[in-house]
């Protein structure tokens, strides 16, 4: 059952999430972790792209440095081989 994670408490991460969503990524609650705010999933789930490892990525509710974590989200989205330019 997919559950909406709601809003991330950090503003930079919220902006990065919005960017990811605009490129087709979805965010859902993890059923297996209480520290994770959400799991971000790529629409394409393409195993040719970065060995498929980055098709499913965690975002913690309280990452050590939210600014760095936000920067990584942009990088993961931009690094997708199926990203629409």
């Amino acid at each position, binding site marked *: 059952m997919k559950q909406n994670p709601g809003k991330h408490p950090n503003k930079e991460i919220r902006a990065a999430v919005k960017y990811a969503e605009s490129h087709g990524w979805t965010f859902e609650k993890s059923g297996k972790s209480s*520290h994770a705010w959400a799991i971000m999933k790529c629409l394409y789930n393409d195993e040719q792209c970065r060995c*498929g490892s980055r098709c499913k*990525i965690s975002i913690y509710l309280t990452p050590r440095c939210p600014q760095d974590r936000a920067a990584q989200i942009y990088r993961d989205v931009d690094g997708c081989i199926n990203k629409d330019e």
Partner: protein
Amino acid sequence: MNKYDFALTFKLAEEIDSEIYLDALYEAECDDASVCMGKIGWLELDFIRSSPSASEAIETAIISVNHAIPDAVLKHISPDIVGIAEIATIMNCSRQYVRQMINSNSYTFPNPIYNQSKSLWHLIEVLRWFKDQKRDIDNLDIIFETTKFARIYNNTINSKNIDVDINVKSVIDNLVHT
């Protein structure tokens, strides 16, 4: 304190979804990592870790992961092998610019380690070239330190995985020394 940007790739003991380890990783101080779980039985962590040195940043990260998942085996450290796209990211420029830079410096630019459908380089050699050329690259020394650690680790692991034939080794040793 500098910020070191690197990734660790681990193989799990079983072909399972690594999502079950998220809380253990968080509690083992991997809260500065992005945990990539798309490949079943594998786990990739992208760290941006503040530390006095690259080796301390990477070593503490590995210890943290192994604390959370004792039987996970570290298979690779990045950045090490890169293509045009990764070089463009480091230089903060377009891929087109990187291609032009390589073409117009074809004699001095490092030889790719793979040169078929696409080209790949050892990043450490590309960074050394940037240094020789006195190119103005953000955080070049920090990236260099991180990449050097990754290259030495990966090289050590790869050599261990090759069953060395004594005769072949002596032939190669002679070739390398001449």
